[in-house]
């Protein structure tokens, strides 16, 4: 695992002013250039098993050519978290297969997300700050101990 430059900041449980319906927010706010960024391409390939063709077209093995509005709720949420620092998003729209991508986004920038369930992060070391307590934890065991009581 590469060095992590930043810490993923997570607030567990109810949080004010969070965008809960990330699918709807994405559909009405995303910018075309977000879709073709290398990290977005990687996330879409890994999570949705789909390939970005260009800013307006994605190839899905299930749906064929489709618009970005048909991406999964998890990928939409990841792309918002990566590209819209003005808002905090409900990352509980993401499955556990999105956990490593949250950590990846947080490698390069400050990221704050809200989780309303206990997401399974990868085994091994990571840096997550539980904003409810301010404590930084570095493995799954410590994360359960620190955050489990809030969700």
């Amino acid at each position, binding site marked *: 695992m590469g060095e992590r430059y930043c810490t993923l900041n997570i607030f567990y449980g109810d949080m004010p002013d969070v965008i809960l319906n990330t699918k709807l927010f994405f559909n009405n706010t995303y910018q075309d250039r977000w879709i073709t960024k290398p990290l977005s391409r990687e996330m879409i390939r890994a999570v949705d098993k789909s390939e970005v063709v260009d800013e307006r077209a994605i190839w899905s093995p299930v749906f064929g050519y489709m618009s970005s509005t*048909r991406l999964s*709720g998890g990928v939409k949420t990841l792309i918002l978290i990566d590209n819209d620092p003005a808002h905090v998003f*409900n990352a509980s729209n*993401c*499955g556990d297969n999105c956990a490593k991508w949250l950590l990846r986004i947080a490698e390069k920038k400050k990221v704050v997300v809200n989780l309303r369930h206990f997401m399974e992060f990868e085994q091994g070391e990571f840096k997550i700050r539980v904003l409810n307590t301010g404590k930084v934890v570095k493995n799954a065991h410590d994360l359960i101990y620190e955050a489990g009581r809030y*969700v």
Partner: protein
Amino acid sequence: MCHVEVSNRNVVYRLDLHKRITLVRGNSGTGKTALYEMMNDYTDFPTDSGINVSGDKPCAALSYWYWEHQLRRLHDCVVFLGEPQYYMELEELAEAMLRTDNYYVLYTRENLPVFPEDDVEVCEMKANGREHWLTAVSSERK
């Protein structure tokens, strides 16, 4: 148990529901949202949507804004809900749901202590190409 099938030109969902409340979780990209959106379209326009729905009971999606009105009219159906966190009156909704004889399919990763444990099955959506189905995760709510 209750079996329903939902399909269009791209996908088919074959769902076996063992309890009254099915909480659907699992990885992103497995088609949970697509099913809910199909059921929404089917509820608004059963014929015009072109969506095929068959099985043991009629199916419908619950609207965020008109759920009280809808629940008064839905009996012995399979009812699909989006993320329950958007329903501001979750406890009222849960109580109303439990007063009916419908089956419910909810997409949520949150714990919902408002439902009796015996009435709940937690499932994951699985997909292989256009085929989608549910598998039970555990007899306990996670």
